[in-house]
């Protein structure tokens, strides 16, 4: 058998002693190519050192950590509410999901029950974050395969989502949304009006994108059978979220272990079949319709109880109370100064993030800060399959595969 990019074993390059003469000669003729760290098509700081046989990738080594910010170490020195801004910066395309996941972890530790209205508002915020996340991923995949229109025009809807974030929490990208114990404010009239607007405009835009992409000859040629992964391989590599569902496994934490009242909504889990780039695109595309449906249901049956729990030890009192009421002043001071001790315990809580199972493993020793906090970051775990998925593919496909995996540098490096 002739040695080619397809037939050479993936680890042959690392495994020098077992090489035959023919394989060694083949490896000597390969070109080393640095893809990144600052390559415009990787949308973040990623470096991959690829061994190329002409245009085909034979093997590669990923180097990560370019924007590592030691969040786990910082978290050991910050009171619980100050960790929320750190979670913003994990997957910054869908910050509200990270925020809510963290709040729910702490609430699980403190055993706080939050009112259903707060949970519904959280669901709305999380599903909007998912819309924004998937929209970025799919339109960037379009850019990388030569279609700029999605990235240009569909982002109007992302802008609308960010305007709604502003109404809910006051900021746009790194949201720091919600509090331990609920939301910091109720959904206001403008927010509801804009969400209604989103529910009309977003599907119309999706339909337009469908016409541009789904049966587009060029797009299909560039994505079908590009970077496929089997379900077994994906599970062994720790894939979760849309990338796993594209391979045909219907694992979704929102259904598997529902949190935040997700069991009260009707929605489908779209799955793919071959796990290739086109399936990943399609799964994300269908999930956006499901997210819209969840938002619509949540808005239609929004409960009327409060937007935060009655947990004065952990939830900041209203500001006007702080000026008038002694207890409120004390709680305000203690919470802001981080003088509230959490009970000792060990909690793992996972939410369905934009890219898969976003887990928080929190160990508290009864102090004001976590003893240990570990983020289970879906990107970090599935990105290790990237070089294997690129094997035998041309360089241009490697770019499309990376876009379709939706690897976010912030989440990768934490």
């Amino acid at each position: 058998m002739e040695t080619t990019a397809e037939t050479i074993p993936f680890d042959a390059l690392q495994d020098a002693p077992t090489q035959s003469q023919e394989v060694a000669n083949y490896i000597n003729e390969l070109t080393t190519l640095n893809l990144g760290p600052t390559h415009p098509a990787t949308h973040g700081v990623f470096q991959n050192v690829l061994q190329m046989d002409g245009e085909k990738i034979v093997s590669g080594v990923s180097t990560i950590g370019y924007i590592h910010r030691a969040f786990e170490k910082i978290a050991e020195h910050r009171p619980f509410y100050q960790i929320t801004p750190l979670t913003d910066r994990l997957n910054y395309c869908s910050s509200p999901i990270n925020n809510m996941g963290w709040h729910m972890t702490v609430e699980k530790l403190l055993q706080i029950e939050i009112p259903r209205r707060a949970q519904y508002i959280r669901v709305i915020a999380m599903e909007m974050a998912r819309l924004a996340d998937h929209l970025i991923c799919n339109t960037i995949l379009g850019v990388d395969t030569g279609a700029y229109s999605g990235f240009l025009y569909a982002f109007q809807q992302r802008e609308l989502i960010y305007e709604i974030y502003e109404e809910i929490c006051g900021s746009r990208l790194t949201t720091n949304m919600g509090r331990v114990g609920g939301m910091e404010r109720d959904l206001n009239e403008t927010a509801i009006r804009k969400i209604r607007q989103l529910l009309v405009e977003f599907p119309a835009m999706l339909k337009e994108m469908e016409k541009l992409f789904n049966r587009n000859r060029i797009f299909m040629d560039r994505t079908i059978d590009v970077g496929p992964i089997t379900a077994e391989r994906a599970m062994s590599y720790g894939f979760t979220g849309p990338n796993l569902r594209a391979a045909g496994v219907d694992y979704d934490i929102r259904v598997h272990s529902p949190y935040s009242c997700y069991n009260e909504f009707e929605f489908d889990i779209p799955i793919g079949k071959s796990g290739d780039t086109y399936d990943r695109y399609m799964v994300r595309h269908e999930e956006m319709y499901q997210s819209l449906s969840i938002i619509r249901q949540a808005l239609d049956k929004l409960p009327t109880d409060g937007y935060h729990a009655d947990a004065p030890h952990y939830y900041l009192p209203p500001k006007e109370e702080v000026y008038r009421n002694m207890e409120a002043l004390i709680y305000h001071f203690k919470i802001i100064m981080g003088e509230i001790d959490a009970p000792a315990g060990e909690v793992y809580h996972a939410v369905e993030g934009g890219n898969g199972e976003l887990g928080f493993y929190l160990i508290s020793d009864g102090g004001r800060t976590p003893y240990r906090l570990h983020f289970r970051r879906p990107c970090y775990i599935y990105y290790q399959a990237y070089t294997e998925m690129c094997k035998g593919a041309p360089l241009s496909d490697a770019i499309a595969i990376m876009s379709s995996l939706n690897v976010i540098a912030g989440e990768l490096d934490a």
Partner: protein
Amino acid sequence: MKQAISNEAALQILQARFGSDIFDGSEPYGMLTVYTKRERLIELLEFVKESPELQMNFLTDITAVHYPERAGAEFDVVYHCHSWPLNFRLRIKVSVSVDDPSVPTAVPVHLCANWLERECYDFFGIIFVGHPNLVRILNMDEMDYHPMRKEYTLEDPTRRDKVDLQFGR
């Protein structure tokens, strides 16, 4: 989806096979947590993966925790396993000492262990015996310590401008 196997039943299955090598079982916030010995760790991970009663087909996470005051067992290496068919999660811990912080690698059982173990090595200095490529992953290669160990403070301890005596950072 409900958890299809109770924690007690799962613990019994594990103890029937591993006897006293499964110890200190507890259920913090509902998740079954057991300690095992590092000699039997890989056997245990394989057993829960292949066992028809447990079907723990997914390794969610590997991480480590440093307890400097626990002499002889300074590190816990923590494995989170998940059975999707049964919706059952299991936390497996192995204690190792700071003098010999080594555990066998789980890469042959679950491919995703590769980078997770490299992360543990990078931040805690846990040696995963048999790992295909145990080098630093997020920190720079020249670093000569493992920063998540508790003896390393967050900020440069020689800086005087950051001392906050009142609230003790």
